[in-house]
């Protein structure tokens, strides 16, 4: 029971990084290997805010979210768009964007190392027990989960009930057709990429309430987010959320019954199962 609730709480918070990557990969068509670093930046922002001002890391979101939004917008506008224009085909763009974001992830790690050093950073916030069904759970995990739920539900409503959201979904389904009906694909992609970065960073801020971070941890989160996106099916937000819960549960089970150091192995096991059984993802449509 413990495992299930902790797993669900963790999975719910993971959903943010997966949804963020989903926007970047599913809409803007950029497989962002630096997405984990965006998340770590969000976490470090919270740490810095908490230690400097002694205020709830939730307030850090006020700074982290717009900062990540603009940083990721700039990355798309000045680094990805030239690659999109240079690419002769989708395959070329895939290779170039993978390489560019891979390089970017190391630049980000380098900057974080220069600013914060290589130590694990942590703080203690709301580390008080809260009772669910008679069992105590850390309150910070519950608050993080609720924060994530608010962001995900808000995003879902925005995507499905506003004109801008519709534009994003149109580009996600078919960029060239979206262009033909008068949608500015480049600026929509930039918006999706920026929004995705902001969501990933907010995930980092919330995760930092109960996980410790160091500068080099980004790649692990990138990998987990990618596994979730593939498991859920590229382009499907609901899939990403369901897959986040599955990863959260699996990871918590592995950490509890096997070894806390093997969480990445849990993600890989899920990845292999998906590759062998349903490569198009849980909610993905078989393309052929």
């Amino acid at each position, binding site marked *: 029971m413990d495992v299930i609730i902790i797993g669900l709480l963790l999975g719910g918070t993971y959903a943010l990084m997966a949804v963020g990557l989903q926007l970047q990969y599913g809409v803007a068509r950029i497989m962002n290997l630096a997405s984990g670093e965006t998340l770590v930046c969000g976490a470090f922002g919270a740490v810095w805010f908490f230690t400097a001002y002694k205020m709830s890391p939730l307030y850090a979101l006020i700074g982290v979210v717009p900062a990540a939004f603009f940083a990721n917008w700039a990355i798309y506008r000045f680094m990805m768009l030239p690659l999109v224009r240079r690419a002769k085909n989708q395959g070329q763009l895939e290779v170039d964007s993978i390489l560019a974001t891979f390089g970017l992830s190391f630049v980000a790690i*380098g900057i974080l190392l220069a600013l914060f050093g290589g130590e694990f950073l942590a703080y203690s916030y709301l580390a008080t027990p809260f009772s669910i069904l008679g069992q105590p759970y850390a309150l910070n995990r519950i608050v993080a989960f609720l924060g994530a739920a608010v962001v995900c539900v808000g995003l879902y409503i925005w995507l499905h009930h506003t004109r801008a959201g519709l534009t994003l979904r149109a580009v996600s389904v078919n960029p060239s057709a979206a262009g033909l009906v008068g949608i500015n694909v480049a600026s929509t992609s930039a918006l999706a990429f920026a929004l995705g970065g902001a969501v990933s960073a907010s995930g980092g801020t919330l995760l930092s309430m109960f996980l410790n971070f160091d500068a080099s941890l980004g790649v692990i989160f990138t990998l987990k987010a990618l596994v979730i996106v593939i498991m859920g099916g590229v382009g499907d937000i609901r899939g990403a959320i369901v897959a986040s819960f599955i990863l959260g549960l699996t990871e918590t089970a592995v950490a509890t019954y096997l070894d806390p150091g093997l969480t990445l192995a849990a993600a890989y096991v899920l990845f292999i199962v998906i590759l062998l059984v349903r*490569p198009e993802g849980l909610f993905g449509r078989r393309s052929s």
Partner: protein
Amino acid sequence: MNLPAAIALSHREQIKLLAGVLIFGAAALLPFFNTTYWLSIGISIAMFTVLATSWALFSGPTNYIALSTAAFFGIGMYIVGGGLPYLPFPALVLVAALAGALFSAVVGLATLRISGVYFVIFTLGLAELVRQVVAWAQHVMGTSSGLYVLIGISDQAMYWLLLGLAALVFLVGWAIGRSRLGFALRIIGNDEVVAVHSGINTARAKVVLFVISSTFAAMTGALVAPRWSYVEPSIAFSPFLSFEVVIMALLGGVHRLWGPLVGVIPFTLLWEFISAKFPSQTTLLLGACFLLIVYFIPRGVVGLIEDFTRERGGAIRDLLKRWTGGHA
């Protein structure tokens, strides 16, 4: 194809072979100059030559970016570290090669049947995964996380071994280049749909090349393990290694067999300089160099050279033609 035709070399190939032998022969003389500093750089260059060239054997023609060099390199290193009490060093290098081949075959079979993106993602965290599993296994078995690699192998011997391995990579790469497998990979890299409809079993071709490439990485890890007398997970499975290998190969150019070598030499020297001058900014500078290469020299130094010779066209090509006997 009949056998004599397979072995027979054109005039141009004979010249290339001669040049290769001369270059390797000259490189083999380095230890006689008695400078430890340059020998240590020589070892790095030889090591990265093997890693970057074998990386490009697979990733060059297929355009599948493998980010897993460190995983296989680390496996090789750990096999030497853990196996020294039981087996002699040369046997362990072979075991490492075998382990690298088996592991990469599993990874390749799981991912390369489906799509390039899944392969990249799988390789991205592979080094970290193996590191976690090794650490866990050591924890379960109650051994310490580090391993001592105390073996009397001189720097000269290690340099020559790596140089020999580099020569082997070039020979294998050259043989693949003129084989049906090499032709199949060029077709796959151009258009996978055409490849399939021409009768190429694309998954098998890709897996074979990935296995060859990863086997060399595992052997390199095994050979250089004695360089660190104490091996621990953070050294063996460092993500920077995968990153450096990709940078060097891209800097040189991945569409020629000798391309990565052109990147390895200047980059190793530059790196030596940077890590001495700015030891705390290495990650940032490494990332910045990488971006510069991706954005400004996407086809590597070899691409620049080719553009240059094409512009200068006539004169140089005529010269080359006369020199190589009219086949340039």
